[in-house]
């Protein structure tokens, strides 16, 4: 309990509680998680709101994974994308706020619309607020880890677009996406992470 006080001020904690779907305890736990990412960078005293960012290189490379991945070991195709989406300036370097944001979205308390919105953003590789064919192609290429030829990927994407494109503009708007995602309730009901 004592450590809590030294890390955040009371106001800070309350603010975090307001901004996220977390309780105090969870915020603290996430903070330590965050701190673990880069112990040398992240101070244990956050009362002064230090402008600390954990660079992307350190995110997702936990100590036990810091061993060079084997040749066949494939990195998660979306890790970079997620860091990118949730980091403030899109460079993949995350502040504590970004970090909390991310888990807040992933928490079970977060409403579906919010989840759908962020899922949409993750898909939207070129950040133009639409999922267009290129975005889908990127997604599919990543998912299949380059096992499909470009032609096959484009065929798949065409079909996906055909299926989901409600307003027939050849790309998926957020509404299209939400429509499709919310129609299949299983998607978002499992889009949670428990830390």
């Amino acid at each position, binding site marked *: 309990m004592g450590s809590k006080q030294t890390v955040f001020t009371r106001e800070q904690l309350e603010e975090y509680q307001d901004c996220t779907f977390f309780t105090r305890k969870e915020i603290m736990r996430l903070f330590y998680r965050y701190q673990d990412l880069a112990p040398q960078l992240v101070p244990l005293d956050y009362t002064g709101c230090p402008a600390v960012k954990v660079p992307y290189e350190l995110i997702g490379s936990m100590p*036990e994974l810091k061993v060079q991945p084997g040749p066949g070991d494939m990195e998660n195709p979306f*890790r970079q994308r*997620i860091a990118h989406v949730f980091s403030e300036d899109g460079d993949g370097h995350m502040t504590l706020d970004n970090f909390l944001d991310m888990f807040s979205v992933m928490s079970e308390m977060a409403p579906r619309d919010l989840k759908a919105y962020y899922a949409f953003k993750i898909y939207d590789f070129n950040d133009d607020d639409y999922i267009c*064919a290129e975005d889908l192609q990127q997604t599919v290429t990543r998912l299949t880890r380059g096992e499909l030829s470009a032609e096959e990927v484009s065929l798949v994407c*065409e*079909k996906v677009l*055909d299926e989901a494109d409600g307003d027939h503009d050849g790309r998926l708007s957020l509404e299209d996406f939400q429509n499709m995602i919310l129609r299949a309730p299983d998607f978002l009901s499992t*889009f949670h992470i428990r830390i």
Partner: protein
Amino acid sequence: MLRAALPLLLLALSGAVAAEEPTQEPGALGEPSPGLALFRWQWHEVEAPYLVALWILVASLAKIVFHLSRKVTSLVPESCLLILLGLVLGGIVLAVAKKAEYQLEPGTFFLFLLPPIVLDSGYFMPSRLFFDNLGAILTYAVVGTLWNAFTTGAALWGLQQAGFVASRVQAGLLDFLLFGSLISAVDPVAVLAVFEEVHVNETLFIIVFGESLLNDAVTVVLYKVCNSFVEMGPANVQATDYLKGVASLFVVSLGGAAVGFVFAFLLALTTRFTKRVRIIEPLLVFLLAYAAYLTAEMASLSAILSVTMCGLGCKKYVEANISHKSRTAVKYTMKTLASCAETVIFMLLGISAVDSSKWAWDSGLVLGTLIFILFFRALGVVLQTWVLNQFRLVPLDKIDQVVMSYGGLRGAVAFALVILLDRTKVPAKDYFVATTIVVVFFTVIVQGLTIKPLVKWLKVKRSEHHKPTLNQELHEHTFDHILAAVEDVVGHHGYHYWRDRWEQFDKKYLSQLLMRRSAYRIRDQIWDVYYRLNIRDAISFVDQGGHVLSSTGLTLPSMPSRNSVAETSVTNLLRESGSGACLDLQVIDTVRSGRDREDAAMHHLLCGGLYKPRRRYKASCSRHFISEDAQERQDKEVFQQNMKRRLESFKSTKHNICFTKSKPRSHKAGRKKASQVFFLGPQKDGVANAEAINGKPPRDLGFQDTAAVILTVESEEEEEDSESSETEKEDDEGIIFVARATSEVLQEGKVSGSLELCPSPRVIPPSPTCAEKELPWKSGQGDLAVYVSSETTKIVPVDMQMGWNQSISSLESLASPPCTQPTTLTHLPPRHLVAEEPQTLLDLSSDPRPSFAFPPSLAKAGRSRSESSADIPQQQELQPLMGHKDNTHLSPGTATSHWCINFNRGGRL
């Protein structure tokens, strides 16, 4: 066991004279009487298999009878009906033989009847769902079963102590625990039989059903431990025995699962090498799965668990390895066997119940057991769910819990186990048997009957059969990865992380090892789903198209639906037979004269008139190959032809894409393209005032015309662009024109075809062979196409690779559209006539359209990507609305001009 069944069956089936039965009875029991010796001798030779076959036959006939009435089966589960039938049959036997002769033998049940059912359920278990809910399933299976067994056993013992059970039931605590252990297990057969008809949502189903499968290990262990304790006598049981009992739980369950996985591995590995002997593939599946069951049984491990895991583990690889036909064979055989076994089990359960010699009724015990199993099941479910919901992402709500507790059906496993008890060691066996029978009957009949209304009344989320979509698959994968990535980001190794790791491991090692290389290629799931969707689309398209055409001849059903269905189906086929499609292109390169055209027309006419599948003859009596019968071949032929036509249209689409992409191309090709484009120009004009020109034969539009319009092309293109919104609709027109091109031939074919008795000529499209397929274009378009072809053939030798590409793309982009022109012209008069005709004629005129229709994707792909993406959906949407209308009313010129766009663009590039 099967001894006295002949009389029964004679009675049941053929209504043999009842008086004869008793005289046969002793004989059937093995005391030969001289008078009937000959008959009996023959009978004994075949007795056992004959009876088995007859039993299955009776069961199947019963099933047929049940399903004659929809009303009955929709209200009453089949299992109930079968049990009741069994009761009736058993009653007849009893009446006739004065002695119940027949019952469910535990040996038969465990060795022959149970494995198919379990294999079926394991093999077709949705593995993803299963593993997602594994935690809950395991909890209910292990903790739940233990809880049920001990509480029920203890409560019954308490009941006895309290004096509610008659004193003739000689049983101690251990006996009651033994009884509790065998009565507490939810039965997979019963659950499957009932829940399959109820259609609750998948999660609920997998939890109840998974529990019923996995609790086998617990049941087996509990039963064995209690049994041996009872046999040892309560006094001799030592502390180490309890420990051993606990340890054996792990040994039995994990050992069973391990055996299953080992056999799954072997099975997958074996099927990898069956390329040359496809015919034994299904056999291998059954043999190895059965071997897994027997091995586990032999080692007294959990056999059910073993065969479940075997089915679950091998499916992915086996399905990829074995041929399509084998897959179907496996599926159907498995379902047939399981259904047979299930039917026989329930029927035998009913028959066994009649055997009152094994009964000893005690109302206190029976009532107590019934109440306790229901109560403790419910209590256990509620308690466990409460704990589980602390961890579950999607909590199980109250309604789910009600269904789960109510769905705890007991069945044949309990009955077989109770029959296996040793009467000398368990003096109360008869009471237990009676109680078990009552419990089984109660759960299967009463609960089975009421669960459907209950589910309806509680508004339990039903499973909905939505079509699998590519989106679903895509997003599922993406979400998995995203979740794994988020876990990765914090270095939290949760479920997603491990699943991700497992998938990687599977991809890197297991799949490589266990799958054929060819199969491995298409195993990427997204592509797989795409592939399957396409196949489904294609088949449904052909089913629809082929069937409709053949059955109704000229009338044309909803065209729009067909178009939309078919829109992507071709892509897949193209990929499948990619090389074949390319080879076909060569055909275009040959120059054809007018004479060839005539030949072609004749050829089509003949092809339409005379049906002849072009199949090589196979030895029809080969044991190793299944020869297709004529009908099948014919269907296949029709399918192929339909698909080929679709391919035809698609090829141009596809290569148009290539064309726009491949910029570096020879000047010559570019120019040729350009000139082609120009050639289209005048025709467009000509079509615009169609009345004047449409009478002309296509040849009249010579090269002079081409030259004349060369200058206007640029402006025309602009015009087209400005019109593009308008032309969206007319994309379809392109489709129609192509149809016209061949419709001429088709109609001729029809004339001849109508003389035939066989309906097939109408089904047969006029483009049956690779070569002929190209002919409509050639024959229709005359000089134009010849010009193109000769040009391209010239290119080919220059640089094989490059020239080939060019020829393909240029041919495809050029040859197909121009072909629409002349034919359009030739057929304009009939079209316009038709436009004024009543609807019936209209239908007639548009008859060939579906078969020749360009899928919308053609138009879509013809344009540049961005443009296409904007237009397609709208166009799709429009299609159903437009129907015949645009077919007739829209001026063909606009569509023509639309093609111009493509070629212009192509030329410029």
